[in-house]
């Protein structure tokens, strides 16, 4: 089966000072049709930029290299007409903060109808389609919402509107960039349930970006972990939890608070997350890694297959066999 989306060796740079700085250095991942893939990493690890590169809405100063293919078609070399058709029909994106992603001076109806007009649906037909879309995202009073402006609606409501607009074009791929981070907890659960249900019903491929490993596991079939602009691990979501392959993932897992265990003190990963351009020569995670050896700093580890997944760590097998990745050591900081 061909992949729906394939990202290979993606690199994104921005001008910073006199030279170009990496925001994403090396990202590779694939999504099969109907598959949900979680892209997990800390703020600044380059996950949002990766998603924006897929739909090509990076700022004009960005320099992008590597390969992105959708259903075999190269995305990065699409001409504007092709690109528009790709955005209209094949892919949709929802964003972290819906309140800034909707034009504040246009009504919700205007927003939804704008997308429909591209597909030739106008007037009363557009309004009734908008109403049906809103009821699919569980909005009880679609008429009131349609005539509202964004500032009159809550974040959860606006995110539903964004989802409604995303599914309107019946895309085969949905890019969700931390769609629930800006929402309060109860709304988060509702919005996640909506995304999950629509995805399953429609067989839409999903790239779900989050900083929360558990959320990724709950929604996604596979999880890809990014650190400092690189993919460092890729595995089935359950496997990531049971048997992480990369010391960074293992570190993230132990640094979560547990409800069931009382801990005197939360374990933390020493150091701070770094941006791609700050990364040292070898493994970017080496300076924070409890298992780092001098050789780790010599060269960037390859992203290679291991135990049904992929990992970019030269000591992965060793650490796994020794059982060191479960009980991640941590320097008290």
């Amino acid at each position, binding site marked *: 089966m061909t992949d729906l989306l394939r990202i290979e060796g993606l690199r994104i740079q921005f001008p910073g000072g006199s030279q170009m700085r990496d925001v994403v250095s090396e990202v590779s991942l694939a999504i099969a049709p109907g598959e949900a893939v979680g892209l997990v990493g800390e703020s600044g690890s380059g996950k949002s930029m990766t998603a924006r590169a897929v739909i090509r809405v990076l700022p004009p100063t960005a320099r992008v290299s590597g390969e992105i293919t959708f259903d075999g078609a190269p995305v990065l070399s699409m001409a504007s007409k092709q690109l528009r058709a790709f955005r209209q029909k094949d892919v949709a994106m929802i964003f972290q*903060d819906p309140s*800034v*992603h909707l034009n504040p*001076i246009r009504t919700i109806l205007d927003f939804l109808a704008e997308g429909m007009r591209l597909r030739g649906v106008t007037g009363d037909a557009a309004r009734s389609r908008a109403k049906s879309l809103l009821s699919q995202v569980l909005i009880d009073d679609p008429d009131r919402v349609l005539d509202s402006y964004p*500032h009159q609606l809550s974040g959860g409501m606006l995110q539903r509107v964004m989802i409604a607009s995303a599914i309107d074009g019946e895309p085969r791929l949905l890019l969700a960039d931390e769609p629930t981070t800006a929402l309060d907890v109860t709304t988060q659960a509702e919005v996640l349930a909506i995304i999950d249900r629509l995805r399953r019903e429609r067989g839409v491929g999903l790239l779900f970006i989050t900083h929360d490993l558990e959320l990724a596991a709950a929604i996604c079939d596979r999880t890809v972990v990014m650190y400092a602009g690189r993919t460092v691990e890729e595995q089935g979501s359950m496997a990531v939890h049971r048997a992480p392959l990369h010391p960074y993932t293992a570190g993230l897992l132990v640094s979560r608070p547990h409800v069931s265990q009382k801990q005197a003190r939360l374990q933390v990963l020493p150091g701070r997350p770094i941006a791609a351009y700050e990364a040292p020569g070898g493994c970017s995670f080496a300076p924070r890694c409890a298992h780092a050896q001098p050789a780790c700093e010599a060269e960037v580890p390859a992203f290679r297959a291991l135990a049904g997944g992929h990992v970019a760590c030269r000591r992965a097998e060793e650490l796994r066999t020794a059982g060191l990745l479960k009980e991640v050591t941590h320097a008290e900081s």
Partner: protein
Amino acid sequence: MARTIIFRILGALVTLAVTSFVVYGALFLAPGSPINFLIGPHSANPATIARLETQYHLNDPFFQQWWTWVTGVLHGDFGYSIVARSSVSSLIGPRIGTTVLLIAYAGILTIGFGVVGGIFSGLRPGKIDGSVTVLTSIGLGVPQFVSAVVFITVFAVNLKWFPTFGGGSGFADQIYHLTLPALALALSGACYVSRLTRAAVRDETGREHVVTARARGLSSSAVVRRHVLRNAAIPVVTVSGLTVAGLIAGTVVVESAFGINGIGALLVQSVQQSDFPTVQAITLVMVAAFILVNTIVDLAYLALDPRIRARSAAG
């Protein structure tokens, strides 16, 4: 919404009433008695003095005097100019058309060049933007009396493209005569509007909702039209309105420089001749025009921005 509009209009009327009070009261702030000031440097016989006293109701209480003047103004009676020996209305009447035409002409130039230049430079970073920015920085710093003199020297005296003097007669000739004055009047305002438009367009282009629009597959022209320009219009309309209102005061300088017989030049002349009734009348007309433009801007703002609409409906 309707309530808000009524409030804005009432507000404008109150402002206008207060202004008329100040303008009229200025007569009493002048040194000496009002009657001396009304007569000015001219000698007046007792009959004239009596007529002025009756006309200005100088023996009435102040508030009543003001009221009489204002009701007169509302009926088109601006009083009598001793200097010109005619009614103020007959002085303003024939001149106001020229001034209105000049302001309208300069207003169109200000908004036209300002908005178009600003959009171009906002949407096309690079050489176009760079040159527009340099030109507008220069233009912004040029006061109207300087631009007037430079334009006369270059385009009227040296190149002889335009007349140096006068307002012309007949519409086409008037436009021809008013071109240089309008350009001189509009220059710095157009530069200001252009810079603001550029900033507004830049600002909107970088907004996240524009990313959403692009990500949905809208054509770039639709993105620019429906999301960038439409949103940038809100600050641009405000500043354009205020800039055009500012042109009203600028006519005083430009009309004098180009020898145009409008109310701006008449104001200067009346001040020099201490023709107080005329000064009062012109000041009031200019302030009224200023308030009118401001009110229109306020209402346009309401029409353009639903957030302001919501806030004023709530408040």
